[in-house]
């Protein structure tokens, strides 16, 4: 008996529009309005500077641990910029720029990183799920949300973010598999930033690309230069349009790099070489996109960027001050009992009363009845 070839699509493409030297492939250049380009740039810059400020606050002990995004701004913003506000975003924990784009305020992020649950509050008009810390587990929520959108006959889509490490998790498999089976309108955006804390991409999987994993689920997969905003935008636009028109899910692998630490609790010098970081500094998405806006689009100039830097600095400062002010009003620890259940059960009423008693210094003897 012969061995017959089964024809499975094995096409995985890599998309690059604006290369690391800032050279533009005119044929592939996406049409993006000037306003949108400038808004994206502003949020990229804001994301970068906010990261730096958060690091500063963390080192001063004013906030706790957080996960920096520096280097990944294009991979996030190129993708979310395609969404409309009624679409859904399901983040992991390293999407500050994307969250800000979707309307999350800086003060709520500061509040969250300062250890206040109130910072995790998602406003009623914002279609984001909250940050998800356990890796890859939220992919399934994105699929369930997307299924529900289809069931309710909406043409909104869901975009979810995760890293290269997440592709090793079982829930990555289950998420892509369910999305494929039910053809749900989900865009899986993998931020392949090369490092899952100390474990390099090469040790996560023998697969040549992460994008090719899509093939196993019968869904399209595409690898893009994640530090190339135009490439990410083009890939996301294609995927969102497909999802919106009933064509189902897509996996996009954004090849990018985490220029800073995994979180502020981590020291990357223990596991990676400075030369490698410097190589990636040369591929930084921000100056590359700025060069495009200055030279190709004539939308920016050095002076305009300087003005923007000042504006952003003030904006961040104002957010830090607002967060400080809110924090000073959030001293009530009894609120830790809120939102555990729709209604407080009896045991929690008793325990809340116990804490309230301690707080009011009420040392009344607990008698047996």
């Amino acid at each position, binding site marked *: 008996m012969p061995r017959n070839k089964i024809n499975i699509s094995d096409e995985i493409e890599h998309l690059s529009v604006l290369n690391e030297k800032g050279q533009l492939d005119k044929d592939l250049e996406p049409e993006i309005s000037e306003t949108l380009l400038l808004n994206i740039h502003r949020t990229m810059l804001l994301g970068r500077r906010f990261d730096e400020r958060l690091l500063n606050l963390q080192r001063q002990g004013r906030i706790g641990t957080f996960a920096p995004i520096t280097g990944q701004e294009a991979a996030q913003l190129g993708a979310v910029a395609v969404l409309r506000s009624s679409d859904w975003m399901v983040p992991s924990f390293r999407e500050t720029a994307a969250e800000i784009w979707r309307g999350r305020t800086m003060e709520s992020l500061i509040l969250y990183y300062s250890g206040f649950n109130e910072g995790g509050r998602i406003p009623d008009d914002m279609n984001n799920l909250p*940050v998800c810390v356990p890796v890859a587990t939220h992919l*399934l929520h994105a699929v*369930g*949300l997307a299924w529900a959108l289809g069931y309710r006959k909406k043409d909104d889509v869901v975009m979810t973010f995760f890293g290269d490490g997440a592709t090793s998790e079982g829930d990555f498999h289950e*998420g892509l*598999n369910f999305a494929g089976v039910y053809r749900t309108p989900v865009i899986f955006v993998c931020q392949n930033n090369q490092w899952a804390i100390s474990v390099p991409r090469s040790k996560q999987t023998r697969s040549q690309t992460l994008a090719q994993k899509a093939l196993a689920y019968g869904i399209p997969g595409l690898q893009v230069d994640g530090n190339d905003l135009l490439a990410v935008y083009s890939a996301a636009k294609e995927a969102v349009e497909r999802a919106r028109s009933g064509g189902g899910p897509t996996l996009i692998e954004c090849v990018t790099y985490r220029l800073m630490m995994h979180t502020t609790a981590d020291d990357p010098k223990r596991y990676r070489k400075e030369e490698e970081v410097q190589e990636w500094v040369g591929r930084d998405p921000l100056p590359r996109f700025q060069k495009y806006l200055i030279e190709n689009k004539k939308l920016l100039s050095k002076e305009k960027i300087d003005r923007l830097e000042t504006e952003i600095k003030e904006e961040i400062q104002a957010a830090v001050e607002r967060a400080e002010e809110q924090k000073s009003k959030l001293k009530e620890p009894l609120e830790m009992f809120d*939102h*555990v259940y729709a209604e407080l059960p*009896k045991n929690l009423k008793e325990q809340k009363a116990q804490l309230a008693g301690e707080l009011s210094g009420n040392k009344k003897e607990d008698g047996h009845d």
Partner: protein
Amino acid sequence: MTNITMVQALNLALRQEMEKDDGIILLGEDVGVDGGVFRVTEGLIEKFGEQRVLDTPLAESGIVGMSIGMAAYGLRPVCEIQFSGFSYLSFHQIESHASRLRWRSQGRFHVPMVVRTPYGGGVRALEHHSESREAFYAHMPGLKMVIPSGPRIARALLVSAIRDPDPVIFFEPKALYRAFREEVPDEEETCPLGKSRLVLEGEDLTMISYGAMMRPSLDAASELKDKDGIRVEVIDLVTISPLDDELFVQSVKKTGRAMVIHEAPRSFGPGAEIVSRLVEKAFFYLEVPISRVTGFDILIPLFSRENYYLPNVQRIVRSARQLLKT
């Protein structure tokens, strides 16, 4: 009013609720065309279609995780994990997300979902098909954990679980699926979560149990009455968490003697919490130490020996007599 089994009663609850609310979606392995391996969802795919009854890929985390996403959007998914012994593949979804999303989003997102799953021994099954691990789920803040003990209450409890705004783990005692029938009214019945039930009134001793162990407990109570003249009060917890301690504390204050009966292993089992509440709230009313008749702290043996593991009428009667002797 019809005389039906627990399987039929659960099916009735699902059918009637699905008729009322198109946000209720069933999903799980074999729940559609096959009607569930125990036939709880039989006929529902025919009645409501593939859009409301989803035969899912074989993936527990996928089933629960997808349900969480559906619930976050405002649907009311009722998912089935084929056996509770396989629910650990979705444990992280329940612990990390179902129980926390309301809290994490500070009230923006709710997870009004039900995870139905058969638990417990007594059906001569394979490994992983007989465990009783309600304590795992009862230990999680943000979650509700309920177990019915017969057809009528199973129907009412499932209706209430579906309507509940919080995620509910609904353990179904598989040994009781077809063990007996009860009259179940056609019209709607509900059973509030977080409320235990007084099933039998008595003065001498309080038995606290739930799920499949309610039958041997009631049989033991009946034997004790007939042979020893002991009047046992029997309480069905119905909800394991949040635990309703009012009824059993009140009962033990009256009887002074308490027994807890469950098939879960003894150490750190639900009995440990019940005994603690009694110690905290009724200590000075106790005539004798509290007794626990439970599974042993071992893995439930394969079925040729499972009857030595599971609490039975003789074991309960013997323990009760000991309590009355002292």
